[in-house]
């Protein structure tokens, strides 16, 4: 949100948030406009030039709109949940990312105390996003909300899907806390499959098969240059 506030149309976002706080339905018009008004630049261009891993300026603006909606619905979690479901279902991919990243912001604010209706709707929307092939939508569904509220099976599949599509695991919130033996087993199987095929093994698989203490893992997510595109094609979409 700091980045969004520095964007060219910072005044537009502030006005829009004020309007949403007065009238929650204003969000329905603000959501599709956000990219045109605040831009679509990556939030962390140094490590994430496409804005897939950590999101974009318009993702952050829409997340701020979700936070404003929370205020506008005045603690009525059921109505907020229904509104978020509408914004997601009627939204394009960028708007859907905005809802997911908004749920992340709400989760960080509320922690484990996120109201039940929001947890339920968030799980549904994350499951929908995790079935998609658009890499940015999948990456937006593995943040703090997912870390706190997805079941272990769904969460493991989400992590392996990121490796599959070639998105850095830096996108995953609380990776080390939630990684378990079954995830390591899945990662080892995938590495074996790639070796049997004579294909390159994605570097990120090593983070899952042999989880190292955070201090040993080299450059952090904010360190520019940490993102290096793989020289051979290790990524793929899930074709029929």
């Amino acid at each position: 949100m700091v980045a969004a506030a520095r964007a060219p149309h910072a005044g537009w976002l502030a006005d829009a948030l004020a309007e949403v706080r007065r009238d929650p339905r204003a969000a329905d018009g603000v959501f599709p406009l956000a990219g045109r008004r605040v831009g679509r630049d990556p939030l962390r261009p140094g490590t994430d030039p496409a804005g897939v891993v950590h999101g974009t300026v318009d993702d952050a603006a829409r997340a701020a709109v979700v936070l404003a909606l929370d205020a506008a619905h005045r603690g009525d979690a059921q109505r907020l949940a229904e509104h978020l479901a509408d914004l997601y279902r009627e939204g394009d991919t960028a708007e859907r990312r905005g809802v997911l990243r908004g749920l992340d912001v709400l989760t960080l604010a509320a922690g484990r105390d996120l109201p039940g209706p929001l947890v339920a709707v968030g799980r549904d929307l994350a499951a929908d996003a995790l079935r998609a092939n658009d890499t940015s939508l999948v990456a937006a569904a593995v943040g703090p909300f997912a870390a706190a509220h997805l079941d272990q099976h769904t969460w493991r599949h989400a992590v392996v899907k990121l490796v599959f599509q070639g998105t850095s695991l830096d996108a995953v919130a609380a990776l080390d806390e939630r990684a378990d033996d079954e995830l390591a087993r899945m990662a080892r199987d995938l590495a074996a499959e790639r070796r049997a095929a004579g294909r390159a093994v994605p570097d990120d698989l090593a983070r899952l098969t042999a989880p190292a203490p955070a201090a040993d893992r080299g450059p952090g997510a904010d360190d520019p240059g940490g993102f290096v595109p793989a020289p051979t094609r290790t990524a793929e979409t899930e074709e029929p």
Partner: protein
Amino acid sequence: MRIFDPHVHMTSRTTDDYEAMYAAGVRAIVEPAFWLGQPRTSVGSFVDYFDALLGWERFRAAQFGIRHHATIALNPKEANDPRCTEVLDLIPRYLAKDGVVAVGEVGYDAMTPAEDEAFARQLALARDAGLPVLVHTPHRDKQAGTRRTLDVVRESGLPPEHVLVDHLNETTVAAVRDAGAWAGFSIYPDTKMDEHRMVAILREYGTERMIVNSAADWGRSDPLKTWRTGMTMLEQGFTEDDVDRVLWRNPVEFYGQSGNLVLDPVPGFVAEAPPAPATFEGSSVLRGVRA
């Protein structure tokens, strides 16, 4: 070389593809129902899609001399969306149609309880309709997914020779062959399986119950991968009869179990022999083709 592509999503392809496929020797295809990249949100969306597979796409293929068949199912990915699962009630109606040669693609995507339910239910529909089944194996956790797939097939009581387990690779082929099912391989640029790896697998396991497809769709794919596999087989010492078995007789035997294949030439297209590999190589279709 005559070619039956047993798995290709032609609704995502152009008429240029149809022309190139015919020129390469493709005379019959099967288009499995699957997802469209963008999730469906209602049963009506499936109905229109199934109707298009059996109607417009069959007509379109026929314009290019290719016999088009379909498999019908609720795919595993969308089996997870409650807005879509009611389509299961409509599937028996489609299984009775002309040109529907199997139930498919069914199987696992993320291995959820909803996928278990849709998979088991559609295996029962196949048994009731007397149709074979095309089973998709998952991209993630493929080895565990393939083992679980074979367990579910065994529990269904379907004869294994009625089941084609697709998208296999070096780590999953043995289990499928041991189970007595047909083994399917999708030949893709760079990823799942390529023609050289495929020929190595054929050398190791033989040509019996082995099926090769292009699985061409809206992703990076190539509807001539069946032909390229045949050419690679010939280059590496397989006979023309071996190629005919893998690219024509095997898929015809598998889908023929439906009693619903149409293989005579499309009216207006002469029953001439498909191009021999040597003459085809010199034709315009091959220009610009990657090795």
